[in-house]
C-alpha cells in the first residue's frame, strides 16, 4: 500500500554516449485545496480540515471508491483485504497511526499524527508551533532533502522560502484541472550537451 510513489520520467531519447536524463517526482496525496475527491464522497469520509489538510476519516468510509475515480493524481489506495501482519511484524505498527480495516480508502495524511503531536506540545507550552518542529516521515527520510514540509501561512518557513527562491521553477501537477494542489514541485535542472 504505497502512499508515496516515486515516478520516473524519461524526457527524451538518450543522447550519444550518455544515459538519458531521468526526472524523478515523489507523488503523494497533493492535499488539493479544491479537492476533486471531497465532493464525490457520499458520507463525508474525505473532508477538508480547518488547517487545509485533505483528511480521510476511516470510520466514515463505506468504500464506494468514488474518490479514487475522481482523483487526478491516483494517489488513493483501497484496502481490498483485511490487513494482516505475521508475527513479529505486528510489532512494527506505528502506535500513533490508525490501522485501517478491509474496505476503506486511505492515502497520505501528511503525517497528521506528527502534526497533532507537535500542536499539542506547543499548546501545553503556551506557544505557537515553530517551523521545523513538525516534519513528515518522507521529508525526514529523504537523504537529499528533496522534500520540505512546513506551514504555508508562515512566510518565514523553510518550505515557503524554498518556493519563493525557486519561483521560476515552481509548478503543480495538472494545473488545468484546477484542483489547486498544495504540493508544489521544482522543475529539475540538468546540464545538457550544449552547456556542459
Amino acid at each position: 500500500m504505497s502512499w508515496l510513489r516515486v515516478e520516473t520520467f524519461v524526457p527524451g531519447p538518450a543522447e550519444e554516449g550518455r544515459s538519458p536524463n531521468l526526472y524523478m517526482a515523489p507523488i503523494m496525496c497533493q492535499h488539493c485545496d479544491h479537492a476533486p475527491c471531497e465532493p464525490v464522497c457520499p458520507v463525508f469520509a474525505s473532508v477538508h480540515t480547518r488547517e487545509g489538510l485533505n483528511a480521510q476519516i476511516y470510520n466514515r468510509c463505506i468504500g464506494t471508491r468514488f474518490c479514487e475515480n475522481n482523483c487526478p493524481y491516483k494517489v488513493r489506495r483501497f484496502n481490498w483485504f483485511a490487513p494482516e501482519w505475521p508475527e513479529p511484524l505486528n510489532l512494527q505498527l506505528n502506535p500513533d497511526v490508525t490501522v485501517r480495516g478491509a474496505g476503506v480508502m486511505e492515502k497520505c495524511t501528511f503525517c497528521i499524527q506528527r502534526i497533532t503531536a507537535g500542536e499539542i506540545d506547543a499548546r501545553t507550552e503556551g506557544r505557537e508551533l515553530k517551523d521545523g518542529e513538525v516534519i513528515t516521515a518522507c521529508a525526514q527520510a529523504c537523504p537529499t532533502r528533496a522534500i520540505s514540509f512546513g506551514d504555508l501561512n508562515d512566510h518565514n518557513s523553510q518550505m515557503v522560502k524554498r518556493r519563493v527562491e525557486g519561483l521560476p521553477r515552481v509548478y503543480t501537477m495538472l494545473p488545468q484541472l484546477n484542483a489547486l494542489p498544495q504540493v508544489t514541485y521544482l522543475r529539475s535542472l540538468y546540464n545538457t550537451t550544449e552547456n556542459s
Partner: protein
Amino acid sequence: MAAAVDTNLEPRYIDVDHQVQRAMAPGSLKYWMWVLFCAFLTALGGGYRTDEVYTGLGKTGLTEPTMWAPYITNFVFWVGIAHSGTLISAILYLFRVRWRTAIYRCAETMTVFAVATAGLFPLIHLGRLWFFYFVVPYPNERFLQPDFRSPLVWDFFAIGTYLTISAVFLLTGLIPDCANAREVATGWRKTLYTIFSFGWQGTDRQWRNFQMVYLLLAGFATPLVLSVHSVVSWDFAMTQLPGWHSTIFAPYFVAGAIFSGCALVLTLIIPIRKFWRLDEMVTIWHLDNLAKIVLLTSLIVTYSYVVESFMVWYSQDALELTTFNQRYFGPQGYLFWMMVTCNCLIPLLLFSPRVRTNTVWLFIISIFVNIGMWLERFVIIAGSLATNTMPSQWRFYTPHVTEIVITVASFGWFLMNFSLFAKFMPIVSMTEMKEGISWLRQAARTSYPYRKAA
C-alpha cells in the same frame, strides 16, 4: 374460444380472459426447471458475494485505478433496462399510443425487477456493506448527514424514487386484473389475488378513481424516465476524469437506456408469446413498433458516439485525446468495436420491415443490442478509469471469477423474479386489452404486413 382463434380478426372480451388465464395456468415441468435454474444462479451469486464480504473486495479483479468495473456496469445496465418499461407504460399511456396495451405489463414488470436488480449493485460494490446506511439521511447521534453534493447520494434518491413509483404503478394497474383472476382462482392463489385486488368490485366509482390514479401515476412516472438515468449518468459526468467528464452524458445515457430496455422487452416478450401462446394479443404489430423504437434509439446512440468523439477532437485536450485514443485503439479497443457493431450496425437491419416482423430475427438482434449496451457501459466505466490522467497508473481491468459469477447471477435473479411474476400475475393487461379490442380489430384488418405475418 376455438372459433375466435380461427377467425383471428374477431377477438372477444372472453377470449382475452381465456388467453391470459391460460398463461397463468400452473407451470409445466420445463417452466419450473427454468425457475430453479435461475434460482440456482442467484444462490451461486449470493454465495460468492458472501465470500467477498467476508474476505474483502480483493476477491474481484479490481485494482487501482479501475475502482469501478463490472458492478457499476451492471448497475447502469439494469437501471437502463428499467427505463423503457416506464416509457412504454407511462409516456405512451399519456400519449394514448394504442400498441402499448399488450406489452406494457410485461415492460413494467421488467422495470420493477430491473430496478430491484440495479439497486443491489451499489450495495454489492461497497467496501463495507455493513455501513451502507451512512448514505441514508436519518437522524443520528453523530449529527452527520450524507453529503448532498455527491452524485452517489443523488443516485440513492433517484433509484429509491424510481423503485417506489414504478412498483406502485405496476400494482395499481394490476388491481382490476387481479380482481378478474380472483373470480376464477382457487386455493392460495385466490388469497393472493384477493389481496392484490384491494377489494375491487368494478363499480363505476372505482373505475373512475382507478383511471384518475393511473393517470396521475403515469404523470409522476414520466419525468422519471428522463431524470433517473440522467442522475445515473452524472455519477460519471460530474467527475473530471477524461472519458467521463462530458455534458452529453445525460441525453446519451437516456437514449441508451431506452434502446437497451426496448431490446430487453423484445427478448422477454418473444419467448413468452411463443411458450404461453399469447401471440394473438402480442401481435407482430406490437413487436414491429418496439423494433422501431429500438431502431430510432440506436440511431440516437450512434449519433451520441459521433458527437462525443467529435467534441474530444474539437477540444484538442491532450488528456481526453489520449483516453479516447486508448478507447478506440488501445489494448481493449476490441470491446469498443464490438460495441459499435452491436449497437450501431446490427440494429440497422431493423430498417427492413421483413426483419421487424420476424420474431427470430428480432430476438437475435435484441440479444446483440443487450450485449452491446452492456459493453458500452463497460467501455465507458472501466476503460476510462484504466487510461486516466496519470500514465504511470494505467492498468487495464481483467475480471475474476467472482464478478463474472455475480454478473451472471444478476441475470438469474432478474429472470427468476420476472418468470415467477409472469406466471402468477396477468402478464398482459386484460383491462386495457379489452379497452383496445375494437381498435386492434381494425389494426389487424388494415395494416398490411401484420395481416400477412399473422
